[in-house]
């Protein structure tokens, strides 16, 4: 029996027979094994009329517990209110959506809806649901659950982070049940790639959640403290236990609606255990030590460290190429109230000058950022779209090389000048000094800020790096606006441009450099608004791509923030795990957890992708 620091993998043989016969010992042993005496939940046999989805993966074998290390504890298991990554990672295994984006192909595929059709004007979507499915508590699933789910997501009082996406053209999507297994969605205007909206919108069990919703405490439902009997979902797993500060264990959902081509109901794994390990270093250490089976979002340094031991320790690592996220230097161009405005006004006058922003962009050593921050495993960025976003990146966007001379020229043309000491002064004779705030827990962004500090020092700017706690950074950027510049990161959710709307629309909630604009502050922002709105309602890909290319060009030319770089997605898994197909889109390793299985001991790796 293998003992682990925090968590013991349950074995099929409970082993109570080996205990000494002495009664006291027997009691102790039995108590110690109690959690593991229960056999794993067996998958239910297929029922007549049950419309299972058949997957085309390699046929696996049942059994085993997958152990995953999480950096922090989930905040909630409520899919409608969850906003943090660890919560969503767990919830994604417990629930299912109507139409799903396949993480490997980045295309949509049927999920709980077996088929759908769109009206000719692209406004009405009719979804056919699978029949005979059951939630993880055995209760049937039908159109009522779908209608209820959307009612909750769209409820203003619930404040779901996904609600914004379901408001198309200023009006919420209308949902109507045609019959028990047909649901119609009506949009107020055509919306490009509307079927992608359904991805990751968890379908809720009406029979369990209608009461809390009617009583007005839906947001408190499905907290971490709720007992497993209060939960039910359509995901491959269901909640088994939660130990605060230590772990969440999920067990097989015996009613899951997918089967492999040999008619075995998925998932293969008996259980998944999420251990809360604290931070990225601990995540890497636990993986290296064999405590966890899968690791995702590894930093490049830890990746290098892990790869040294990979052959001897029986795991494999994968570099999937640049992520979809973008990291950037953000300038504070918000409208400020006293007393802040007096303090930040001179700085804002520099930041508002395009030549100043371009000078900074020209002075930034992006190659060094990729080399020193990402240890070569990343890509420099000049725009908001990552090079791995093949469908949408504007290939013609220029990638100007670093040039301090050009930067100085731009500053000179904007009226800046240098004194003997090399210090830069603005046209009014004030020294150019500002600070960069960044999250202290994110060493990569702190390093970027340190490189920026040195680069801008070469232009005579006196820059200070101020690492703050992540919440303090968010508070300053979103609430108080009390900062000069910040190194931040965004994106990574979906490859499609639509989730980016709230960043680039001047009225958007993540329009970071100038939040709460009543109307576009500059001409180019007005033009950007127009382009983003147009691409949103354009149904044809080629036209949409052209519009989004134009938007990227405007963003690149005007540099509302200076784009820096994006890290590669680095993941790892034990060699014994089969069907492992990591993808760039989140969740990069667990997206096909229903198909993962453990190879029998001694079997060799049978063609792991990439």
């Amino acid at each position: 029996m293998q003992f682990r620091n925090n968590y013991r993998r349950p074995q099929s043989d409970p082993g109570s027979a080996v205990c000494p016969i002495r009664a006291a010992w027997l009691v102790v042993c039995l108590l110690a094994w109690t959690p593991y005496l229960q056999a794993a939940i067996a998958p239910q046999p297929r029922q007549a009329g049950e419309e299972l989805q058949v997957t085309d993966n390699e046929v696996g074998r049942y059994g085993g517990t997958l152990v995953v290390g999480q950096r922090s504890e989930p905040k909630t298991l409520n899919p409608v209110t969850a906003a943090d990554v660890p919560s969503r990672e767990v919830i994604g295994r417990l629930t299912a959506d109507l139409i799903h984006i396949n993480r490997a192909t980045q295309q949509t595929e049927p999920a709980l809806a077996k088929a759908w059709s769109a009206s000719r004007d692209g406004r009405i979507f009719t979804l056919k649901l699978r029949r005979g499915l059951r939630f993880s508590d055995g209760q049937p699933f039908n159109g009522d659950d779908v209608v209820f789910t959307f009612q909750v997501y769209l409820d203003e009082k619930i404040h779901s982070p996904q609600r914004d996406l379901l408001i198309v053209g200023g009006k919420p999507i209308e949902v109507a049940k045609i019959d028990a297994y047909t649901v119609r969605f009506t949009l107020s205007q055509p919306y490009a790639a509307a079927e992608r909206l359904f991805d990751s919108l968890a379908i809720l069990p009406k029979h369990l959640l209608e009461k809390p919703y009617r009583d007005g405490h839906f947001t408190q439902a499905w907290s971490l403290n709720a007992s497993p009997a209060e939960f039910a979902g359509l995901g491959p797993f269901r909640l088994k236990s939660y130990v605060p500060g230590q772990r969440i264990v999920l067990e097989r959902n015996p009613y899951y609606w997918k089967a492999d081509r040999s008619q075995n109901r998925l998932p293969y794994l008996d259980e998944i255990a999420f251990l809360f390990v604290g931070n990225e270093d601990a995540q890497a250490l636990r993986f290296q030590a064999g405590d966890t089976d899968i690791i995702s979002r590894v930093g490049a340094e830890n990746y290098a460290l892990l790869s040294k031991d990979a052959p001897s320790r029986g795991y494999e690592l994968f570099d999937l190429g640049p992520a979809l996220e973008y990291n950037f230097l953000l300038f504070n161009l918000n409208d400020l109230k006293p007393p802040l405005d007096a303090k930040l006004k001179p700085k804002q006058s520099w930041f508002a000058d395009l030549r100043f922003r371009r000078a900074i962009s020209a002075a930034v050593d992006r190659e060094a950022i990729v080399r020193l921050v990402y240890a070569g495993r990343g890509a420099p960025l000049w725009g908001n779209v990552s090079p791995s976003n093949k469908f949408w990146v504007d290939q013609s966007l220029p990638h100007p090389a670093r040039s301090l001379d050009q930067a100085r020229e731009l500053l000179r043309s904007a009226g800046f000048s240098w004194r003997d000491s090399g210090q830069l002064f603005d046209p009014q004779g004030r020294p150019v000094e500002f600070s960069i705030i960044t999250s202290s827990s994110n060493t990569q962004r702190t390093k970027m800020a340190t490189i920026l500090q040195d680069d801008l020092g070469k232009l005579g700017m006196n820059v200070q790096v101020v690492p703050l706690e992540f919440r303090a950074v968010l508070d300053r950027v979103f609430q108080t606006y009390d900062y000069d510049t910040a190194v931040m990161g965004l994106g990574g959710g979906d490859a499609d441009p639509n989730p980016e709307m709230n960043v680039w629309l001047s009225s958007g909630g993540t329009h970071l450099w100038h939040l709460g604009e009543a109307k576009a502050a500059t001409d180019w922002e007005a033009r950007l608004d127009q382009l983003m709105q147009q691409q949103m309602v354009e149904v044809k890909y080629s036209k949409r791509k052209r519009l989004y290319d134009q938007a990227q060009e405007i963003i690149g030319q005007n540099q509302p923030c200076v784009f820096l770089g994006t890290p590669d997605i680095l993941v790892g898994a034990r060699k014994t795990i089969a069907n492992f197909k990591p993808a760039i889109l989140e969740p990069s390793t667990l997206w096909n957890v229903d198909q993962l299985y453990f190879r029998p001991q001694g079997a060799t790796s049978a063609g792991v992708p990439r």
Partner: protein
Amino acid sequence: MPGKWKIRAALLLLGIIHAVIVFAGFASPYDPASQNRDLPFVPPMRVHFVDAQGHLHLRPFVCAPELRAGTFYEYTESCAQQCPLKWLVPGGKYQLAGLLSSQVHLFGVDAPARLYLLGSDNYGRDVLSRVLYGGRISVAAGLLATAISLLLGTIVGTISGFYGGWIDEGFMRLAELFAVLPWLYFLLAVRAFLPLQINPLRAFFLVVAVIGGIGWARPARLVRGIVLSAKTREYVVASRGFGASDAHILFRHVLPHTYGVLLTQAALLIPQFVLAEVTLSFFGLGLNEPLPSWGNLLAALQQYNVLVSYWWMFAPALALVILSLGYLLVADAIQEQLQTSTV
């Protein structure tokens, strides 16, 4: 006398360390903030006297580091390119002891080659230069904080010991309060109240004031004890009988008794306060990048991969150990002297 030799050796060691730190600009080959982004995490270079052909060189040389292709910051020496070490080479501008501006460094190699006797950090900055410059801030903080706490301690201790009564009671209860404070948490709490964005000089003085302002309790109690015993000596009583003023008695008869204790306390407190500064900066509450202090140099070790892969990043810790050892030896020797002289 072994005691004499011990104190001499310790003082010599301390003298060298402090001289090197005060003249860090001259003694270090590079500016502590100057980056070389092509050479991150270069291990300490070996100084060669004999080349590949077996020829002996009187002028030692180092070999240029070469990144091994496809590896993660692993270097090989390429001795095809030998960089001879030279004395008094021109380099980056610095201020000598804050007075003289100069460009001459004690030793180095000709640019564009770089010399990393103690390796380089994540940005290709010279660790040796950073340790020397960092020592400047850490040691200065230790010395200043010690001065503050000894001054406070002497004043409080003298007043309570000499005047006694409720003044004594009040001060000593306060001292007890400070003595039982978990100082690290207290420092963290105090630092948390202060604004985060402050300029480096102010950050430095804040750190010094916070450390010095907490550490006065022990010297105060020691001084009070000595003053209490000294003021009852017969010559003090006689002096008072002749009508001497309080100030005269204090400065002429009482305080000289405290000098030995104060000296020992200083030797004990300096390393302790250097460590306090290192601790604060380690947690990111002291001085910020790119200004080096031993604490923020060691902060790089908070990253697991640095901790296990780049042993030379521990250099500031070694410097701290040597410095503390020097001061403790001195404190020990003074203590011995005091005991032999009073017996």
